[in-house]
């Protein structure tokens, strides 16, 4: 929708340069592999097979390159370390996207390579350039066996990685994707059969790598492609060790909205605001790691995550800790009732308080948890811009809990970097379901000394019935707090008009009203940090691009789940 394929792939400088480099490198390697095979006089016998062998060798080199690249974007810990230094060069947060591009390319070149080899082997059999059958090469030699095996693994991995399957049953994707281990073994040993040789029979030796490089004239590409594999394996081992470090679930709070807050104490766990972690509860599942956004600030003495009981895992976890759906439902009802009561509102309170689950009262102690992380998210860069626009949509608001808390701590210690103002937008369909976030926003709002520093904008996009409309109108007039969110900030209804918002912001900044003294600066950077659905991301990104002028630079970063 909207922009065409051509527009997207070729008319934006960044994507164009990626396409040029990525596919350019692939085509170059293919051409080089073709050329080096076709001109190699030692392989004259093999070159008798003509085009098919040139194609298979060219595609083979490309596949070795892809086999190298495929694991690079998955080196999460290394990416987390290098990304602050390299954000200007490549979007480190798009690592999964890059992983997918490599996979698509790999599938395409695997098709070329396999097709060419089917032709090679039938011609080897017909011409008897080597005394063997096509069947022997396919199913008795290392190259053929590993090749067919890798294709089968690719079938299983690609089909279960489809976004529909991933959403349906993440486990199917997660477990199947670990076949990558065998795939990589297959890749590294693919050439051990010594297919590319200048002798009629393979020249095996007894020493590693068990074939002589004198007569086996392959690319020896495993010497390069194995490194990301080793590093990745090491990283997985390191993650396992790190996850085993002392971790304790110190508190478990159930919020009236139904969200469980897990407060975990792990002294060895260092993170920055807006990052996320993997959590494992061995009592629920010994193998599964689930990603959650950290909702505490680095200054807090604990690491907290907010978990809503929406999926299998989260429900099972709720059952395990004794906060099953029935408990939560009762709590939520009580809370909603509390919220409707007038005296409760006058207290300036919240919609009921959270309940701490006391492990002593239940028969089972709190479960053991393990956490792995933290992993990067673009919102770490908030303090490098003058104005930060934080936009959370629906459940995508979670990373901003940590960021807002963190900003609040930094503000208190007077250490805000270049950050001058924060605009926080929360676009959400039904406000009551995010009760826990409201309580956090209340704290932050109440703590603001400078009314111009943080502005909270809340948009409620659900359709509002007549009853609700009147209810709001009656409660809103003259009240100190907004009737829906119980914040001083008024809730706005309907979808935000991003272009308008950004245009207004740009005008206010250029006229110097927005930040005093900003007009004297050479350039103001307004960083937008968004977390939510991609349609909305696109709309906001367009608005930021439109609003960018010579004196104001609007940047945009999106978080991925």
């Amino acid at each position, binding site marked *: 929708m909207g922009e065409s394929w051509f527009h997207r792939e070729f008319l934006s400088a960044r994507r164009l340069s990626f396409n040029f480099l990525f596919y350019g490198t692939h085509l170059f390697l293919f051409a080089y592999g073709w050329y080096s095979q076709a001109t190699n006089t030692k392989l004259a016998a093999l070159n008798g097979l003509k085009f098919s062998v040139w194609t298979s060798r060219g595609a083979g080199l490309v596949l070795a390159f892809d086999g190298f690249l495929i694991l690079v974007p998955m080196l999460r810990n290394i990416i987390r370390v290098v990304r602050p230094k390299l954000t200007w060069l490549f979007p480190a947060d798009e690592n999964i996207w890059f992983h997918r591009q490599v996979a698509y390319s790999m599938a395409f070149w695997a098709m070329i390579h396999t097709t060419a080899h*089917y032709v090679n082997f039938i011609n080897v059999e017909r011409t008897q350039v080597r005394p063997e059958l096509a069947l022997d090469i396919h199913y008795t030699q290392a190259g053929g066996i590993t090749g067919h095996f890798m*294709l089968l693994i690719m079938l299983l991995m690609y089909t279960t990685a489809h976004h529909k399957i991933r959403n349906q049953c993440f486990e199917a994707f997660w477990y199947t994707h670990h076949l990558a281990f065998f795939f990589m073994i297959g890749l590294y040993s693919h050439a051990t059969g010594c297919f590319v040789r200048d002798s009629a029979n393979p020249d095996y030796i007894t020493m590693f790598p068990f074939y002589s490089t004198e007569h086996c004239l392959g690319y020896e590409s495993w010497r390069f492609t194995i490194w990301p594999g080793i590093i990745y394996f090491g990283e997985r081992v390191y993650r396992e060790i790190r996850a085993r470090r002392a971790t304790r679930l110190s508190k478990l709070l159930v919020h009236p909205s139904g969200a469980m807050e897990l407060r975990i104490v792990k002294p060895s766990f260092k993170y920055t605001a807006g990052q996320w972690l993997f959590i494992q509860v061995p009592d629920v599942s010994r193998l599964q790691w689930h990603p959650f956004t950290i909702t505490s600030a680095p200054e807090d003495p604990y690491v907290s995550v907010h978990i809503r009981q929406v999926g299998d895992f989260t429900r099972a976890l709720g059952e395990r800790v004794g906060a099953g759906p029935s408990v939560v439902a009762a709590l939520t009802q009580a809370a909603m009732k509390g919220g409707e009561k007038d005296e409760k509102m006058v207290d300036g309170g919240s919609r009921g308080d959270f309940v701490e689950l006391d492990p002593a009262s239940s028969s089972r102690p709190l479960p053991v948890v393990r956490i792995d992380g933290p992993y990067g998210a673009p919102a770490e860069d908030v303090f490098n811009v003058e104005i930060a626009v934080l936009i959370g949509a629906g459940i995508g608001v979670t990373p901003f809990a940590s960021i807002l808390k963190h900003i609040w701590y930094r503000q208190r210690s007077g250490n805000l970097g270049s950050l001058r103002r924060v605009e926080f937008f929360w676009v959400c369909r039904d406000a009551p379901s995010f009760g826990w976030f409201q309580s956090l926003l209340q704290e932050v709002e109440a703590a603001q000394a400078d009314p111009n520093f943080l502005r909270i904008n809340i948009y409620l996009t659900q359709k509002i019935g007549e009853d609700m409309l009147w209810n709001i109108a009656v409660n809103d007039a003259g009240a100190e707090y907004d009737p829906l969110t119980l914040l001083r900030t008024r809730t706005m209804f309907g979808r935000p008009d991003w272009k308008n918002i950004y245009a207004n912001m740009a005008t206010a900044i250029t006229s110097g009203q927005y930040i005093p003294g900003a007009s004297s600066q050479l350039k103001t950077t307004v960083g937008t940090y968004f977390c939510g659905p991609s349609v909305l991301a696109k709309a906001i990104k367009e608005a930021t691009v439109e609003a960018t002028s010579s004196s104001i630079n609007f940047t945009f970063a999106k978080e991925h789940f």
Partner: protein
Amino acid sequence: MGNLIWHEYARYVSITASLYTVWAGFFALIYRKFFWDFVSGIVRNPGGLQPAPQDSIFITIIVKAPILPIFSMLLGSTLVALDYPAPFLKGTSIQRSIVLRPVLLILQAFLAILFYQGTNGAIWSLVATVCYGRALALGESMKEAKDNKGRSGGA
């Protein structure tokens, strides 16, 4: 844990297997070879494997006139049209029949295993068959698409 809808998963496997088989069938038109010709065949240098006389029926339909690969390509295309699905099949009772697919897939596997290029297509078709079989065993059904879906996109 997790709730995998097997026929939705099998669809991807089936499409992949069928596309592979069509591609294999196409190459089987150019490089014609009976896969099982090594059974009591003799090797000639040059010339390669000479199939045994009792294979003559297969040699006729695969090597002399590539009828079998053509059938395989047609069947593969049908399966892709059924599973993708093609616009004219969308929502029809044939397209929503889970029973039909494993039948066609087994037939496809049987055809593909007979010619040289078709082995992987055959194995993958069997994988898809197993997935559809699982869907049948679990009593899954394809729901009729709702026509009143609003237009999505835009924010």
